[in-house]
């Protein structure tokens, strides 16, 4: 999705851009519980959603927030919640429900330092693995990471689009730096934005088989009240949605919910290349760190060093093919992260001895600066 703006430039914070993206994508329901550094998303939506006929509600906790979001989505609303680490932990059970019942929704996690109450006002990227594996059981998930204010807008729209197209929860992993940085951005006009809606059943209701496999692996979604009465459950279910314990029904179900994502890797896996073509030193970064990395790479190029940046926008499903293709001919790969090494584990996993993978980790509550990455590149 490319976005060209003709509107006036605006000074926005990352969290504000998430709100703009959500509204542009058609979000009409938000339920949340206040938490730093995500609260602005709630506050602004409390103001904006009723203006456009949507609904905002502050629930009693984050478990309730995601519950309400799932309920609203089943009733036809594009729905979102926003939180940070502690709240994201509380959402994990209902997140799995949304995976299994295939309910589109967007969960924003503005990462702060953890574990536990951790560092409420400091940036971190410590929730990557939780975003991927936080809810129990094998499940597919889509995780996207914005790196700037403009990204926050664009990728929020993308998050809604993926959630609708693939009937899945999508996690937007922002971080405190992205969320609170103010930048001048030019947002696109509504007609410049591509917005996808879930596919609804069109057959007569008596023919509707709610969880039937399709070529895309994504069944059309009936909405409560529109005549397609069906059963929604967190239990593993047969094609009609009824609980099952039959191996010959469990296996195809589990395979399908994974296949509906894996069969569309080409669509879902978004990366951005900066001078990786001839790069001997490849930096792989995401979120606010990708911006620091980009600066560092530009500075290194000025010194004649063949450095490049692969920015991961989609963290999961992990863009293996793009990563392998980019690092294959490199001398060394650096994965800078504001954690003890989470995406670096994935890079090492797919590397399989092609190149050397180094890490640069910062866990003292500070952001990774361009200087830190630049110095590492220079030393190489």
């Amino acid at each position, binding site marked *: 999705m490319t976005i060209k703006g003709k509107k006036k430039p605006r000074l926005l914070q990352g969290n504000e851009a998430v709100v703009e993206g959500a509204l542009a994508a058609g979000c009409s329901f938000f339920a949340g519980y206040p938490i730093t550094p995500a609260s602005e998303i709630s506050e602004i939506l409390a103001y904006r959603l009723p203006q456009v006929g949507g609904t905002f509600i502050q629930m009693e906790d984050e478990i309730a927030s995601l519950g309400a979001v799932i309920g609203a989505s089943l*009733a036809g609303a594009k729905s979102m919640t926003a939180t940070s680490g502690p709240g994201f932990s509380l959402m994990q059970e209902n997140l799995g429900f949304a995976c299994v019942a295939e309910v589109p929704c967007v969960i924003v996690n503005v990462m702060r330092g953890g574990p536990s109450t951790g560092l409420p006002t400091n940036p971190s990227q410590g929730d990557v693995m939780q975003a991927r594996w936080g809810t129990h059981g094998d499940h597919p998930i889509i995780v996207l990471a914005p790196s700037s204010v403009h990204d926050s807008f664009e990728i929020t729209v993308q998050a809604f689009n993926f959630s609708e197209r693939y009937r899945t929860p999508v996690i937007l992993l922002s971080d405190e730096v992205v969320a609170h940085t103010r930048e001048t951005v030019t947002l696109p006009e509504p007609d410049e934005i591509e917005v996808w809606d879930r596919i609804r059943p069109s057959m007569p209701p008596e023919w509707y088989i709610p969880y039937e496999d399709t070529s895309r692996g994504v069944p059309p979604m009936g909405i409560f009240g529109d005549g397609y009465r069906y059963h929604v459950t967190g239990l593993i279910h047969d094609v009609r949605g*009824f609980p099952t314990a039959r191996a010959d029904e469990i296996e195809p179900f589990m395979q399908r919910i994974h296949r509906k994502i894996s069969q569309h890797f080409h669509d879902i896996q978004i990366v951005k290349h900066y001078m990786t073509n001839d790069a001997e030193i490849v930096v792989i970064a995401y979120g606010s760190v990708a911006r620091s990395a980009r600066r560092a790479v530009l500075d290194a190029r000025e010194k004649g060093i063949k450095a490049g940046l692969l920015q991961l926008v989609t963290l999961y499903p992990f863009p293996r093919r793009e990563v392998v293709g980019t690092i294959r001919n490199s001398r060394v790969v650096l994965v800078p992260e504001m954690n003890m090494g989470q995406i670096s584990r994935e890079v090492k996993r797919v590397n399989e001895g092609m190149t050397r993978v180094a890490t640069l980790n910062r866990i003292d509550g500070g952001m990774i600066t361009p200087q830190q990455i630049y110095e590492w590149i220079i030393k190489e």
Partner: protein
Amino acid sequence: MAEITKLVHKYLRHDKKFPHVWCPGCGNGIVLGAMIRAIDRLGYSKDEIVMVSGIGCSGRLPVYVDFNTLHTTHGRALTFATGVKLAKPELKVIVVMGDGDATAIGGNHFIHAARRNINITAIIINNNIYGMTGGQYSPTTPYGMKATTAPYRHIEHAFNIAELAVTAGAVFVGRGTVYHARLLDRLIEKALLKRGFGVVEIITHCHTQYGRRNRMGDAVAMMNWQKEHAVRIERAADMSEEELKDKFTIGVLVDRDLPIYTEQYNLVRKQAQEQASRQ
């Protein structure tokens, strides 16, 4: 009898694999029957009903009936229902919960849904035990009774669910039993008609997990216990504390009117839109 069976069949899902999961003699079937009768009498269409449940034996209730049905996570049914109702207020949202579901893991959601006065009907099937997981004590297991996790005796004090609902702000609160079937039908009907958060606590038996362990006999004996220990709320007013000592009241505890959440939010929308258009 045949008429009643016919009526129930009109609402059952015939493409669902039966038999159901409940023990023979379980009160959950009586509750389902009462709900179907109330819905039928009030003339709701199948499409406008959304039946939401949590996890437990009670939570399995919606799967059998041909409405929009939503079997959520343990304790969270009211949160999902809140989302459904707010996104599509024209739907009739009915939530079925167990005693553990509604007042242990879901206790917080329960009091907040009542406080908000969201237009939802909550049916709580109180069998004083965790039935599905095998007889562990719940927030309504009485003091001194036995459970698998209270093998000696239970030393906690039970919630009075209906009174909890009253205190939390529910606009309609009724309590019935599965023995008093006609009263139950009427209570559910009233709760469905009520605009706002309506609660019906239904005292029932889990002879398998609770009755057996506490020597209360089979399902019939436990229903007799309900008959002997329930007192109509109108009559209780004239009874002494001594006479009421081991009794519980049934009937309508509260029927009052307070502003309804969805209507209030509509006013907020109007205000927001007016302010925006002035800017």
